[in-house]
């Protein structure tokens, strides 16, 4: 049996925000709340990167954030799925001309999935997670 199949049944998410406008972060918390409730799929938000199976990145990467991101990725126990959440993390979005930008996320660490949107709707987030799960299982 594919070991990753077990992983898809219990995804613990660590949320890394670097220069977001906050909306993505709120929507991440929002999908834990009654209307969307992703605990149905065994998804849980954890506070320590050492417990995480999925790293959610929101916001455009700032100069102060990029160092932390690298460090956090290195600390994380593998296998870990990295998801760019929102337009800013995927492409730097509206902030692409900012002087405090670093480099796009995918130039720093390998990214498994992008969920675009400003902010992505909860339905889109759940769809994105389902796709990450499918990818981990090798179905896509």
């Amino acid at each position, binding site marked *: 049996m594919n*070991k990753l199949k077990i992983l898809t049944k219990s995804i613990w998410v660590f949320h890394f925000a670097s220069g977001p406008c906050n909306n993505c972060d709120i929507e991440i918390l929002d999908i834990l709340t009654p209307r969307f409730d992703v605990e149905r799929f065994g998804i849980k938000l954890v506070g320590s990167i*050492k*417990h995480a199976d999925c790293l959610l990145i929101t916001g455009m990467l700032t100069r102060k954030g990029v160092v932390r991101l690298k460090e956090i990725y290195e600390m994380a126990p593998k*296998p870990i799925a990295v998801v760019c959440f929102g337009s800013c993390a995927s492409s730097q979005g509206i902030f692409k001309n900012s002087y405090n930008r670093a480099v796009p996320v995918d130039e720093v660490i390998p990214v498994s999935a992008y969920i675009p949107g400003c902010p992505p709707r909860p339905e889109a987030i759940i769809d994105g997670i389902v796709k990450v799960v499918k990818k981990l299982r090798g179905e896509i």
Partner: protein
Amino acid sequence: MSIGKLIFNFLIYPGFIFVLLVGGIASFLERKITARIQWRVGPPFLQPFYDLLKLFFVKETVIPEGVNIPFFILVPVIAFSSAVLTSVLITNIFIKSFQGFTADLIVIVYLFTIPSLCVIFAGAVSKNPLSSLGSSREMKLILSYELVFWTSLSIVIIKTGGKITLRDILTFQENSKPIVFSLSGFIAFILSLIVMQAKLGKVPFDISEAEQELIAGPYIEYSGALLGFFKVTHYILLFSLPAFISVLFLGGLNIFKYLLLLIFIIVFENTNPRLKITQAIRFFWFYLFPLGIIGIILAVKGL
């Protein structure tokens, strides 16, 4: 009695595997009921086991730089083994033909302390300011609730006329009535329930791992299988502690009594915010301990 039966008793039923299954299901119930209270749907039935399988077989175990490696690895394993041992000792008293060591109160209470001590060690060995703060809180918490726990247990000993082995206490209750149906017994029962909540590290006493203040407290640096050991310990305690309380006060253990205690834990957890460590100490020492003393006096008077 054959060796095979002994091993079966220790490992399968009512030993390790059984306890783990019950603990896992209890953990599922806890999360499910919490979810229902919060107007959510909650996790699927096998969720606790998926979590464990993932931690043990899929995730890598990261050992942080500069820690004492043997100690770092041993701590969760010790916590796990002491939890298993306790639960086996408790469940085995129900097998009438069981010939092995029968536990008494003192051994079991000491064994119950070991997982908490391991949490302290885990925090201390992790070399992280948040985890060391977590372990210092856990230490204070143990100091505050252990006294109350012992007071509550001494009421039981006085009521049963000086019996300290679990089987004797059980037989005593079968012959007369469960200890909870007396005034002092009821006080002791309430005290034990609150201590149980603290020992399990549930709200309002999850002070040491307070997610919003200390992230995960002592567990912060643990990952993969080592974190898995802590999880298993937690599941097992979720079975063995209520079972222990139930044997002591409710005169035996069956599924209804167990569920009753479990539901109490869950409801208590969901209707209270977290206390501060100072408030917790004050609560245990200045409110519950005097109550325990009153209980002892009542028990001596025979009430």
